[in-house]
């Protein structure tokens, strides 16, 4: 009798030890699980702010001269694309980062028209002052790659947040201070349309503006 009881105790102790090491289930707090999920969730606003502060600002100095690029596009679209532009995937359009100085020749509710040449009256470029949409800012920098994101929804959310940063950090000073006749130094991004002739004036999403 005794050996059987002893045997049972040994077996139970062994099983208890085994289940202690490898439990069939664990009780965890739902709060902890939710919090872990929230930590793992991609935060596009945080990502965009960090990208702007750490990378985008540093890349502004690499922008090409706006006058030179626009002239090149008008002369030879494919050549300008090869020399100055970058494309994302398969597309007839291309993206560029541009910088330059222009004189304000037009101001309306949608944008600020700048003439890049001294004597010109018509705007060569327009800097929008209202809502910014699309992927121009995200893609023109060339520093973000869709392949680095497991989910294209996250990648696209970054675009929305970068656009919001342009609206919050750049557009207010442009809207509030601009007057016809002022000189503005700008750096921005543009998507050059696939159409045979680019749209004039060329829309440039501003990333930095300085009044001179």
């Amino acid at each position, binding site marked *: 009798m005794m050996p059987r009881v002893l045997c049972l105790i040994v077996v139970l102790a062994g099983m208890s030890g085994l289940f202690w090491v490898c439990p069939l289930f664990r009780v965890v707090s739902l709060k902890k699980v939710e919090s872990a999920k929230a930590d793992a969730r991609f935060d596009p606003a945080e990502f965009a702010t960090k990208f702007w502060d750490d990378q985008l600002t540093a890349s502004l100095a690499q922008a090409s001269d706006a006058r030179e690029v626009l002239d090149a596009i008008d002369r030879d679209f494919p050549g300008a694309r090869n020399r100055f532009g970058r494309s994302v*995937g*398969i597309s007839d359009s291309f993206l560029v980062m541009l910088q330059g100085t222009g004189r304000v020749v037009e101001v309306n509710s949608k944008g600020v028209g700048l003439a890049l040449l001294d004597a010109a009256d018509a705007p060569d470029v327009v800097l929008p002052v209202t809502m910014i*949409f699309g992927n121009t800012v995200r893609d023109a920098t060339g520093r973000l790659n869709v392949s680095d*994101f497991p989910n*294209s929804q996250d990648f696209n959310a970054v675009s*929305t947040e970068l656009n919001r940063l342009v609206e919050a950090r750049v557009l207010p000073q442009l809207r509030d201070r601009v007057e016809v006749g002022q000189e503005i130094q700008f750096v921005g991004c543009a998507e050059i349309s*696939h159409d045979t002739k680019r749209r004039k004036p060329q829309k440039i999403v501003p990333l930095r503006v300085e009044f001179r």
Partner: protein
Amino acid sequence: MKSNYCVAALLPTVVVSVSLFGCGSPTGSGGGAGKGKIAVVISTLNNPWFVVLGDAAKTRATELGYDATVFDSQNDTATEASHFENILAGGYQAILLNPTDSDGSIANVRKARQRGVPVFCIDREVNARDVATSQILPDNYSGCVALGEYFAEQLDGRGDYVELLGLVSDNNTWNRSKGFHSVVDRFTDLKMVAQQSADFDRGKAHDVMQSLLQAHPNVHAVFCCNDAMAMGAYQALVAVGKEKQVKVFGFDGADDVVKLIAEGKIQATGMQFPKTMARTAAEYADQWIKGNRDFPQKVPVAVELVTPDNVSQYGDYGKKGH
């Protein structure tokens, strides 16, 4: 004696390894010589747009010298899994996949990868970076941003509208919807009065639109996440005589919608270039079979806005002259 034990222990491992990794592996150059097989797995052939996608992939693979077979997953991940079993057992060298489900298809793609068979996703994405060899995807978000801007312009920034979503498990649905809403939600006088899924299906869209019109008889527009649903919604509007009151916006670039845009009956769509995506996938598969292993994980394909102003440039699921 000891070595005999080793052999006995290793033999099953070797046999299993060979059967797992050896049989499905493509030969280095067989495909180019016209002996290879490529599988084209399409989410559903119950939609003309996907038929074009499958046909274009098959045609390009055939032009490149392969025997190509199209499989219809009927929008069902289990059917897709069954196709993958048959494909992997059938000695196909590459799979061109239009996935059924962004998450649900991952296991199928992973299984093929483990068997050494590359998978090239077309049009729809799987939510993993390390299973597909490459994913050729339309830039839905940008396309719908452009569509949203046009939508707001056509409605003069005010009015009530409904939205018909596609399959809610598919990233394309949300990339389109989010791209569209990233624009229209900024116009406070544009009000979405209903948002409902019609699974990318023309018949379902017809029924959903019919019931939405009963609940919201005064809507000014409907945004549909694909053209099959735009056609279904348009037919529902025609049935109640409201086709001139309600503006219809689709997405895909399907031929019947492009024709209705030219006739002024549908407002706009986004041209996704299914033939370009399918051909690119077939060409990537050919390159893989011939030894190339360097592919971008994701290749976005630009989507172009088609409106009455530029519709003459488009047709046959692409741009004329391209």
